[in-house]
């Protein structure tokens, strides 16, 4: 119970673990809470790990290790004169270098078990990736990967069939069904203006994508900005700024490990601490914890924005620096989030000319009234299929109903491909916990060429989340569920009826319905043969057109989402640029309320070439007719002339 600081010789220089100025990952405070990674297994998917390194040996776990390159259990790296294969060993030390052994420094989770998969040092294929990502998923808790497709600013690449399957199997079956945790380095392509949204591994909803900050809280030169980044750790990169201390190949110690490679294992270590604090956390719980506890303070960038639920979020840092003490503390009392819902909405299925600017806005109800209803968002994806003559000239933005603007793709000057995007699911974490009902806007913009052209053929919005803001600290949710307020429980101890003065909301009782819900009294006949009915006060979801409401109909709105205004006479929300409205028939209850003027502008500008073509054709026809007429007139004149010439040898000419 008495905490003692590690006595390793380099520990005092591990500024990112603990620092008197508090510009650190707050790891020492987490250790003080009694967690050091004990009982947690981490595997580094890389070029192997030096299992006999004196600072790793004691924590080495052969069951978390494998050599996929050679198909044997020994993950020892291949030694070269230039030490090319030191990467995995360096990452491993960051997670679980042994404490109090007089060697080097310590890992974040210095009592965790550490293994390594040698899979990068050879031909990497879909099968190699899949085999690595699904190694021993009932034993390994956390997989840390610090690699990916080229960060050259022009690659768009993601997991193929088997690796994609491995992620899905990992999160559904790994850790006894709680889900494997995949931590990913977000990318080093900053100098090439690369976007981590074009890397299908960091852009995956199944990976915790981790970015970097320098020691002084700046964006490193190599850092990529994108909306799929969840959080950040230190790993420096700036001149005269300290880097990361860790184990090195040939049983050495280094103080110059850097890049996003240095970030992901630090995050994996912190997540191992959280997992030790609560072994029942699911893969999604972990992402919720990261979102809630990451700290934007001390990180400098000009793109910090406040999202719809009041959290600061940035494309360079996600939700900010991981805070080990905070995530451990929250993990201890965390209740699992509800099951993941997935609402898929096809918003564009017919070709639309992109031109230089295309804006598409649609009002969605997030599958309200259906089993896959999402009222509290986790990840959002805009799945796009488009063609464009130069892909790198495109910038793509997604704006949530709460006004959170995610850059799904910034311009990539090196990406001259004309392949466009084929079913690419751009992901954003920036609207986490927002209510996704309302108007979503997709903006596609040309950032460079004037003569660029292309077509958007598909835009599918995929919303992941829960049907409530369920989950959280077990003591929390008191705002939603009031103790002693439930009158009747069913056999599963789920509340079915509340005491007077309370409303049934999801599985509990509340005194006031939350925003987006209306207090309604429903009647039911408790027994089939009895006539008298029982009144049940209950919170029901507002109609998709309303933000707040007094009832569930479209005429019960009290306030409206952005870009709509309330008609005080009819109490309905009218879209500002509403030009068409589909019938809510068919049970879908999804009002597609029009296409914004941006599209009209876009369509208008897109019809200009057609008008020009028609005018050109008309001009050519007129010229042709004119010339034809002139020739006719001239030939008649000549005919007349020749017809009067009756001399022998004269030539009869006709037009």
């Amino acid at each position: 119970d008495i905490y003692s600081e590690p006595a390793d010789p380099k520990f005092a220089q591990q500024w990112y673990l603990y620092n008197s100025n508090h510009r650190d990952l707050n790891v020492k405070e987490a250790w003080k809470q009694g967690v050091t990674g004990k009982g947690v297994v981490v595997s580094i998917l890389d070029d192997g790990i030096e299992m006999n390194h004196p600072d790793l040996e004691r924590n080495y776990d052969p069951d978390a290790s494998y050599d996929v390159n050679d198909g044997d259990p020994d993950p020892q790296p291949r030694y070269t004169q230039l030490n090319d294969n030191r990467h995995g060993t360096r990452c491993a030390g960051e997670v679980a270098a042994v404490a109090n052994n007089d060697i080097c420094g310590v890992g974040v989770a210095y009592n965790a078990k550490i293994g390594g998969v040698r899979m990068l040092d050879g031909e990497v294929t879909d099968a190699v990736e899949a085999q690595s990502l699904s190694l021993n998923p009932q034993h390994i808790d956390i997989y840390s990967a610090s690699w990916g497709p080229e960060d050259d600013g022009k690659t768009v690449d993601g997991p193929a069939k088997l690796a994609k399957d491995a992620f899905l199997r990992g999160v559904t079956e790994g850790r006894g069904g709680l889900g494997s945790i995949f931590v990913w380095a977000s990318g080093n392509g900053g100098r090439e203006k690369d976007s981590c949204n074009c890397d299908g591994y960091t852009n995956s909803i199944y990976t915790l994508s981790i970015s970097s900050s320098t020691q002084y809280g700046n964006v490193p030169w190599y850092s990529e900005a994108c909306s799929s980044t969840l959080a950040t750790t230190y790993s420096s990169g700036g001149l005269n700024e300290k880097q990361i201390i860790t184990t090195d190949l040939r049983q050495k110690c280094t103080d110059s490990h850097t890049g996003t490679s240095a970030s992901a294992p630090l995050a994996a270590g912190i997540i191992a601490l959280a997992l030790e604090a609560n072994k029942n956390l699911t893969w999604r719980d972990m992402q919720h914890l990261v979102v809630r506890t990451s700290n934007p303070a001390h990180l400098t960038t000009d793109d910090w924005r406040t999202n719809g639920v009041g959290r600061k979020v940035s494309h360079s840092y996600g939700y900010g620096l991981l805070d080990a003490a905070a995530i451990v503390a929250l993990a201890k009392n965390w209740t699992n989030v509800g099951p993941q819902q997935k609402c898929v909405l096809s918003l564009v299925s017919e070709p639309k000319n992109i031109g230089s600017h295309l804006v598409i806005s649609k009002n969605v109800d997030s599958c309200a009234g259906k089993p896959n209803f999402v009222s509290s968002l986790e990840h959002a994806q805009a799945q796009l299929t488009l063609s464009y003559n130069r892909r790198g000239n495109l910038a793509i933005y997604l704006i949530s109903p709460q006004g959170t603007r995610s850059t799904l793709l910034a311009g990539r000057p090196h990406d001259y491909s004309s392949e466009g995007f084929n079913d690419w699911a751009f992901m954003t974490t920036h609207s986490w916990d927002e209510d996704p009902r309302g108007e979503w806007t997709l903006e596609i913009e040309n950032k460079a060429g004037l003569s660029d052209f292309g077509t958007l053929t598909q835009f599918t919005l995929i919303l992941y989340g829960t049907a409530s803001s369920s989950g959280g600290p077990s003591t929390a949710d008191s705002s939603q569920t009031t103790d002693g307020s439930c009158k009747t429980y069913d056999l599963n101890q789920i509340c079915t009826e509340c005491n007077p003065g309370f409303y049934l909301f999801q599985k509990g009782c509340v005194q006031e319905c939350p925003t987006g819900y209306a207090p309604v009294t429903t009647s039911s006949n408790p027994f089939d043969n009895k006539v008298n009915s029982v009144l049940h006060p209950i919170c029901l979801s507002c109609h998709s057109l309303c933000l707040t409401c007094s009832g569930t109909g479209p005429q019960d709105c009290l306030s409206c989402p952005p870009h709509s205004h309330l008609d005080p006479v009819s109490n309905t929300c009218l879209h500002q640029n509403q030009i068409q409205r589909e019938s809510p028939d068919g049970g879908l209850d999804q009002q597609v309320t029009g296409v914004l003027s941006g599209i009209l502008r876009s369509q208008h500008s897109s019809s200009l070439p057609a008008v020009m073509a028609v005018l050109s054709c008309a001009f050519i026809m007129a010229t042709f007719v004119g010339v034809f007429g002139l020739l006719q007139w001239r030939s008649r004149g000549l005919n007349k002339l020749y017809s009067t010439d009756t001399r022998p040898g004269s030539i009869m000419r006709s037009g």
Partner: protein
Amino acid sequence: TPSLGQKVYTNTWAVHITGGEEEANRLARKHDFINHGNIFGDYYHFRHRRVVKRSLSEHRGTHIRLHREPQVSWAEQQVVKRRKKR
């Protein structure tokens, strides 16, 4: 050097085989593969002994012979993925 976007085929296959590890080993031997182990589920990672390590064209013959086996419901000759340490 292969041009951008050109596939580079390896001498490895991912194969879906019903019947378990023993059946996978038997088929591997029969078709001159080494079984590099289970990927997950019924998927196995095979390496051929005689197919060249890198090629710009796929090895159709080996693929078709493997696919003809009734226990094989899916097979794919693996292509090189360009991956970078970060």
